[in-house]
């Protein structure tokens, strides 16, 4: 018996899911993002890295509609996207996690992940009032999908624990679960490994890789921990002071002089 080489990531082709074109974002006089363009291919893991304050988070916030850039365009699935509210973007199939865990503290892990199914649940208020029948059926159909996510992330034992009572690492996992439950076409991860120890980072990397390969989910992630990112991503955008200073495969980026100067040379975290 032999084991085939395991390809990292599930890149199916070079079909862009999302194209970012010449985005400029200003807060008052401060320019957070300065003329940035890049694209995200179907099925790849795309990383955006850069030192603190480089504008990574702002970029993510532009992608999912929290910030509206003054200039530039966002293309999703080959069509230019009009200015949208974040919840409309969620309905388009973009899910995300947050750097400082944004779970719903008053709910159990299960309920938190169930909220991820929001965009897939269509039953109206009146059928929910009656519950028996269609609303109940819809609830349990979605519960099944959520339970698969729970199984995937190996958090069965905390299913009914209020998330506030969970340790940090598990909260991160629940949050990832919430995003996964949405079965997103594009999954945005905002520093998924922030504040984790080495072991937790390894776990999280494994989950990200598994998500990518098992479900073929396209992943875009922000991280300032270079090491992990280089290992798991297919392509990397490097940002510094709101500008793009590098873009390419991890190897290309690692050897890029501008990146070394701006990023690798100055900081080790």
């Amino acid at each position, binding site marked *: 018996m032999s084991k085939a080489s395991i390809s990292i990531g599930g890149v199916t082709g070079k079909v862009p899911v999302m194209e970012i074109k010449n985005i400029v974002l200003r*807060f008052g006089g401060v320019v957070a993002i300065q003329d940035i363009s890049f694209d995200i291919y179907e099925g790849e893991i795309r990383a955006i890295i850069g030192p603190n304050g480089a504008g990574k*988070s702002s970029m993510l*916030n532009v992608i999912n509609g*929290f910030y509206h850039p003054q200039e530039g365009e966002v293309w999703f699935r080959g069509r230019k996207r009009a200015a949208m509210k974040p919840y409309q973007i969620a309905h388009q199939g973009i899910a995300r996690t*947050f750097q400082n865990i944004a779970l719903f503290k008053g709910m159990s892990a299960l309920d938190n992940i169930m909220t991820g199914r929001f965009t897939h649940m269509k039953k109206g208020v009146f059928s929910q009032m009656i519950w028996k029948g269609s609303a109940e059926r819809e609830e349990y159909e979605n519960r099944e999908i959520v339970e698969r996510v729970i199984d995937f992330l190996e958090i069965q034992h905390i299913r009914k624990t209020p998330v506030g009572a969970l340790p940090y690492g598990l909260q991160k996992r629940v949050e990832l679960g919430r995003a996964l439950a949405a079965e997103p076409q594009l999954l945005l991860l905002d520093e998924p490994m922030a504040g984790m120890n080495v072991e937790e980072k390894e776990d999280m990397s494994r989950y990200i890789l598994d998500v990518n390969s098992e479900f073929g989910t396209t992943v875009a992630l922000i991280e300032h921990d270079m090491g992990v990112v280089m290992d798991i991503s297919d392509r990397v955008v490097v940002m510094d002071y709101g500008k793009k200073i590098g873009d390419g495969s991890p190897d290309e980026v690692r050897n890029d002089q501008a990146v070394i100067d701006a990023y690798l040379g100055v900081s080790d975290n």
Partner: protein
Amino acid sequence: MSADFLYTIEVILNGLMAGVLYALVALGFVLIFKASGIFNYAQGVMALFAALTLVGLQEGRVPFAHLINATFGTHVHNFDWTLPAVAAIALTVVVMVLFAICVEKLILKHLVNQEPIILFMATIGLAYFMEGFGDLMWGSDVKKLNVGIPQGGSLWFEDLTIGWAAEGEKFYGMYIDILDVWAAVIALVLVLVLTIFSQYTKSGRALRAVADDHQAALSVGISLRMIWVLVWSISGFVALVAGMMWGAKSGVQFSLSLIALKALPVLMLGGFTSIPGAIVGGLIIGAGEKLFEFFIGPLIGGATENWFAYVLALLFLVFRPQGLFGEKIIERV
């Protein structure tokens, strides 16, 4: 000048005077909110309680007389003495400081790190408690408060303004209550004193430090509990002043605690953390509701003061959620 215009001026003036009292109550709110993040619903009841205590002490009433009589079948009502206003005020201040200490010891200490909404609810509970307690202690009858501030219309001002009207118009001069003027002056002095206190004394600086950044203040060794007692004492003092003014004007009774509610729209306009905001907001609300009642009130049945302030604040906030002096809120993700 036409009489209508003069009437308008008079309404505005009176409104501003009322606004000063709103502002006084709002000031107490702001002080506590800034220092501890607590939205103190009990501020109005504190004013009532302070005024009740003041009257009770001044007139030498026996505390809990009602209760004592009911329990022991006695008929005690008054001691044989009355106190001069100054002494009564001084004693009331002491009572308010004691009150602040009790609040800290019995309530705040146990609610550290709770969510703001919980603290807010606690102050509502406190308000209920104080209302019952104040009434039980001093009786629920309407009391007259007289601390020696002159009252009644200012004849001098009436005489001054009577000639401003154009010839042939019916105008009898502007009415302005001397008490309101006193109130305005005292409020001004109070704000000045508070400003000086917070700028130039050690405690005041500590207070500002806490308001700016709780954690940082704690880490440089400022005792949060000390600060809480301090700020509740000051608020108690401010409540006393407000209660005194309002009590002198319309008697010390339950409805006094409702002026606290009026301070809420003031706060919405001015922002929960801004002392100038509280004052400007108070003046706008005061003048605004009087003007509205004067011009629109008769058309729709009157008594619009009941709700105008809230609706004004509501509409204002819809268009400017950060209030008059607040900074634009950028939501961080």
